[in-house]
C-alpha cells in the first residue's frame, strides 16, 4: 500500500527547460496585464495625465520662479523635462505595488501557484508589462516636452542612451514596488505605503530645482539620490542645462552611477521579491 504508482501525465512530463519556461510564462503573464490595460483604459489615461499636468504646471506656473541659469523660462523647460521623466518612472512604481497586493490577496495567486509554471514569472511578467506601459508614457511625455520647448541637442546615440537608461531604471525600480506589494496586507494600505517612500526620493532631488537652492545638510542626500542621478545624467545626455553644485562624484559620473543603481536595485530587490512571493502564506 505504501508503494504509489505515479499516474501517467500529459504534456507536462516533457523535460523542463526551466529558463525557457521562465520566459514564455513571463510573456503569458505580462500579456494578461496588458489586456487588463486595454479593458480599463482609464488607468493608462490617468497615468499619462498626471505627468503632463506636471509639465504644464512647472513650465508655465512655477517655472518662472526657479533659476537654472541664463535663458530664463526656456532654459527651465529644458531643465524640467528630464526631471519629469524621472518622476514619472518613480510614480509608476506605486501602481505595481497595488497591483501585486491585489493579486496576492485574491484567489488568482493560488491558481498561479497551483500551476506547474515558474513561480518567478508571476513577478517578471508583471514588471515587464509595467515597463511597456512606462515606455509608452515616456514617449508621450517626450512629445509633450518637445511641444513646450524642450530640445535634444546632443545627437541620436546620446539620446538613445538616455532613453535606455530611463527604461532600465524603470524596470529595476518596479522590483522595489513588487517587493513592497508582497508585504502589504491589502490594497488600501498598499496604495498609501506604496507612495510614502516614493515622495522623499522624488522631491528631495534635483528634478524641479537645482541642488544649490537646498540646505547644505540635505545636499549629500540629494546628490546621491538615484532620482537626481537619473535626471542629471539625462540632462547631460540630452544637452540640457545642468546647474552643478561642485565636482562631487555623482555630479561627475551621473550616467555610470545611474546604470550602477539599476544593477544594484535589480540585484537586491528581484531575488528578495521572488523569495517573498514563494514564502508568502506558507
Amino acid at each position, binding site marked *: 500500500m505504501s508503494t504509489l504508482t505515479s499516474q501517467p*501525465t500529459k*504534456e507536462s512530463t516533457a523535460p523542463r527547460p526551466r529558463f525557457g519556461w521562465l520566459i514564455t510564462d513571463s510573456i503569458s503573464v505580462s500579456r494578461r496585464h496588458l489586456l487588463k490595460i486595454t479593458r480599463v483604459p482609464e488607468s493608462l489615461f490617468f497615468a499619462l495625465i498626471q505627468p503632463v499636468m506636471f509639465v504644464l504646471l512647472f513650465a508655465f506656473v512655477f517655472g518662472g520662479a526657479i533659476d537654472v541659469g541664463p535663458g530664463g523660462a526656456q532654459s527651465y523647460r529644458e531643465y524640467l523635462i528630464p526631471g519629469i521623466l524621472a518622476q514619472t518612472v518613480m510614480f509608476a512604481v506605486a501602481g505595481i505595488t497595488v497591483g501585486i497586493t491585489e493579486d496576492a490577496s485574491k484567489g488568482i495567486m493560488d491558481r498561479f501557484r497551483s500551476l506547474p509554471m515558474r513561480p518567478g514569472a508571476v513577478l517578471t511578467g508583471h514588471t515587464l508589462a509595467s515597463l511597456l506601459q512606462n515606455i509608452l508614457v515616456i514617449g508621450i511625455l517626450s512629445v509633450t516636452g518637445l511641444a513646450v520647448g524642450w530640445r535634444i541637442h546632443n545627437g541620436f546615440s546620446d539620446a538613445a542612451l538616455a532613453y535606455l537608461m530611463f527604461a532600465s531604471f524603470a524596470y529595476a525600480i518596479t522590483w522595489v514596488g513588487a517587493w513592497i506589494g508582497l508585504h502589504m496586507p491589502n490594497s488600501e494600505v498598499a496604495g498609501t505605503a506604496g507612495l510614502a517612500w516614493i515622495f522623499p526620493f522624488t522631491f528631495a532631488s534635483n528634478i524641479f530645482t537645482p541642488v544649490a537652492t537646498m540646505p547644505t545638510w540635505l545636499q549629500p542626500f540629494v546628490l546621491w539620490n538615484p532620482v537626481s542621478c537619473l535626471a542629471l545624467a539625462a540632462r547631460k545626455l540630452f544637452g540640457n542645462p545642468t546647474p552643478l553644485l561642485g565636482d562631487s562624484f555623482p555630479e561627475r559620473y551621473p550616467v555610470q552611477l545611474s546604470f550602477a543603481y539599476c544593477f544594484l536595485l535589480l540585484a537586491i530587490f528581484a531575488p528578495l521579491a521572488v523569495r517573498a512571493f514563494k514564502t508568502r502564506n506558507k
Partner: protein
Amino acid sequence: MTLAIKASGLAKAYGDVIALNGIDIEVEQGTVLGLLGPNGSGKTTTVRILATLLQADSGSASVGGFDVATQPDEVRSVIGLTGQYAAVDEYLTGRENLELFGRLFHLSKFDAAKRATELLDRFDLSDAADRGIKGYSGGMRRRLDLAASLIGRPNVLFLDEPTTGLDPRSRQGMWAVIEDLISEGTTVLLTTQYLEEADQLANRIVVLDHDRIEIVCESAQDVARAASLIQEFGSAPATSEEVVKTVLLPVAGGSTAIVNIVRKLDENKIAIADIALRRPTLDDVFLSLTGHATEADEAISAPAKGRRGRKARS
C-alpha cells in the same frame, strides 16, 4: 489498491492557533473523499497543503505518487484546484482566462485555445465566453473556476467548498458538473460544510473537527470551577453538565492538553473520576454544523444516491 492521495500526520499551526493536528488521509484512485467539518476545522488548510500552496509543520503527504514537499512541480502537473473564491482575472473574458492558464500549463497556443473552447462548451459558458468575468453570475464564475482547474486534465482534483455561497439552483448545477467529472474517473478531494453535499458526491466521508476531552469530576460542585480552570487549554468554550459531573472541552492538541488539564486540576485539588480523549463523531460534527442533533434533520435521512455504493463514515 492505488492511492491517489496519501497523507499522514499532517500538522499546521499559525502562531499559537493549531489549524491541523496530525491528520491522516488516504484516497484511492478514482474515488471521491468528502472532508466534512465546520469552519475552522482545518479543511482548507489540508487542501492547501496537498495542493503545494502551504507547507505543513510536520507530517508527510503525496499526491499522484509525488511528494508535496519535495516534488511540488510534479504534483502541480497532476492536480487541479478549485478554491472557495473564483480564482480568475476579473478584467479578462472567460476565454482569455482559460487560455492564460492553458499557456501557463505549457500547452501550445493552439492547444490552449482548443482546450479553452472545449471547456467553455462543456460548462455551458460558450455564450459568455467573450464577455468580461465582471458580468458573470456567481454560478458562472464557479463553473469557470472549475473549468480553469481542469485545463491540464488533472488526475486529482481538489474542490474546496465548491458551492459555498451559491443559491440552490447554481448548487445543483455545480453538483451535476462535478458528478460528471467523477463518473469519468477523476479522483476528487471535496471539502464541504454541507452534509448533503458530501452525501451526494462522496464515496467516503472523513469528519474533520477538533478532539474533545471529557472530564468526569468526583463531585458535582467542582464541575463549574473545573470548566473555567481548564478553559485556557481549549480551542472553543467548554460545556459542563453538572448532573453527570462532566465537562467537555474541545481541544486542538489532544494528548498534551490532557497532561496540562490533569496537572491544573490536581494543583487546584479537584478530584477527577475519569478523563478521556474523544475523537469527533459524525453526530458531533453534525451538531456543530447545524446547531441541532442528527435525528431531527432531513439531510441525513435523505436517500443516499446508490450509484457509487457504500458510504463509510469514519
